[in-house]
């Protein structure tokens, strides 16, 4: 049995401490793999020990001591690691700070690593999740995931990927890789939160990491855009499921249960991003999310502005899901035929996406084409049919937080 408040405290402590600790030990021993492994073991020890005995008085210090001890054990065990430790920089006692964590984040999200490994490695090294927790969240086999992580870590060490923040002229390009990982992380959490109870809230971790990142690179507009988007989406989390665990669509959500303070904080981040005058897809999605989150009801939503924002977004991102959402928004302005035509042009790429058929059914109903609407609804249902895993996988394929309209 896990105790919820303790788990929350655990999660907060681990994500605050794990990343800077990995960065510091990597520097001290010249070996990212060793450092990451040492912290991971300390995290696993903490999960067991703290749940059993309650958290220690100073969790950060406890974790640091445990990780340090594990690292030393590993150095003593391995010749290879002794050799690497000799190459390490002299251990200056620089305090681990945001820059340390940011450097680690850039290494874990490095474009030279396999895309599917970046997220897993980021979750372990930067956010302090264990491999079993990650495997549960992604519904993947634990040993496959462990292999993937091992390969990525070896590559960081052997290929000479530095734990360093890129120079200013490369920052904007490289931050894109980091933001993509955080974005996927949120979506994984957003979608999988319908699954069995997790001891880590991936979506909350992603909101935190987006905030940490934006604060660390305050001149990057898209970093603020992503932080805003995730903050606003997460503010609606409480209303996304009914008492029985069923998904509640945006249209039916109880808006009084939204976290309005978080929504306001998200809007402030949008303004911060806008002041930098470099628009991008995360900022546009955040602006759309903000319009939804501040509307008094579905009917009183500012659909015209949302359509205009989708038009700009579709210019930057031609993914079929963006065009689906664009069509759905257009239909709200009272042009169902036009919206249906746009939808039908997406039939091939979205054939196995249940919300495509659900949206189509709705438009067909509005056009009094009830037989076709019934067929479309049936297709949508057949694609979900309470098959949580399949729905999860389908949504995951498209990776957009507003996809399920929830």
């Amino acid at each position, binding site marked *: 049995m896990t105790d919820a408040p303790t788990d929350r405290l655990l999660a907060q402590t681990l994500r605050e401490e794990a990343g800077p600790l990995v960065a510091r030990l990597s520097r001290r021993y010249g070996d990212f793999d060793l450092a990451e492994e040492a912290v991971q073991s300390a995290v696993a020890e903490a999960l067991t020990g703290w749940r059993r005995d309650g958290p220690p008085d100073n969790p950060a210090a406890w974790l640091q001591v445990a990780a340090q001890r594990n690292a030393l054990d590993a150095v003593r065990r391995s*010749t*290879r690691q002794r*050799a690497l430790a000799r190459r390490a920089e002299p251990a200056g006692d620089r305090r681990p700070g945001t820059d340390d964590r940011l450097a680690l984040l850039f290494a874990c999200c*490095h474009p*030279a690593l396999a895309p599917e490994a970046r997220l897993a490695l980021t979750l372990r090294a930067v956010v302090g999740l264990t491999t079993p927790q990650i495997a549960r969240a992604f519904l993947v086999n634990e040993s496959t995931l462990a292999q993937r992580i091992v390969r990525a870590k070896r590559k960081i060490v*052997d*290929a*000479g*990927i*530095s734990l*360093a923040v*890129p120079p200013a002229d*490369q920052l904007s390009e490289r931050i894109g890789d980091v933001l993509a990982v955080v974005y996927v992380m949120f979506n994984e959490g957003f979608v999988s939160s319908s699954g069995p109870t997790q001891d880590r809230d991936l979506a909350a971790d992603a909101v935190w990491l987006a905030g940490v990142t934006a604060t660390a690179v305050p001149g990057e507009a898209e970093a603020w855009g992503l932080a805003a988007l995730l903050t606003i989406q997460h503010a609606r989390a409480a209303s996304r499921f009914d008492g029985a665990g069923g998904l509640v669509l945006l249209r039916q959500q109880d808006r009084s249960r939204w976290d309005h303070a978080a929504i306001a904080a998200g809007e402030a981040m949008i303004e911060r991003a806008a002041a930098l005058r470099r628009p991008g897809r995360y900022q546009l999605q955040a602006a759309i999310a903000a319009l939804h989150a501040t509307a008094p009801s579905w009917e009183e939503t500012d659909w015209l502005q949302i359509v205009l924002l989708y038009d700009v977004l579709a210019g930057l991102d031609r993914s079929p899901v963006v065009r689906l959402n664009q069509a759905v928004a257009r239909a709200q302005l009272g042009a169902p035929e036009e919206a249906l035509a746009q939808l039908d042009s997406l039939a091939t790429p979205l054939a196995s996406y249940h919300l495509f058929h659900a949206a189509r059914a709705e438009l067909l109903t509005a056009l009094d084409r009830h037989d076709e609407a019934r067929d479309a609804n049936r297709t949508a249902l057949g694609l979900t049919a309470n098959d949580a895993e399949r729905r999860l996988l389908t949504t995951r394929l498209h990776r957009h937080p507003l996809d399920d309209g929830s």
Partner: protein
Amino acid sequence: MKYVLMYVSRPDLDAGADPEATQALYKRVFEWFGENAGVMADSGAELLGVETATSVKYGEDGPVVVDGPFNEAKEIIGGFSVIEVPDMDAAIAVTKTWPLLDFPGGSVEIRPMVEDYSHMEQ
């Protein structure tokens, strides 16, 4: 760290190139090596085509000499260099300026070189 850069090309795409353009490209490649002389541990070599390749392979009764290899891969290694730079990001930065990357099919494989054999010392 030392990295081997393997310059990959697509002979099928190069075949139709006009000679003047090829000449200009050679000039740019030559300049590129000049600009990056500081990081070149070994500027390496350009290789003649795979049709000139000969392989010596294991055989039960001793090494066997054969023509080829003629595998079906469209991409072939057209040359290599060894660079010495602080880390992967620096290697990527140098590689990104390789003139043939302006052309479809152009690609460079970056491989770290084994330099530390201390773990072999017993």
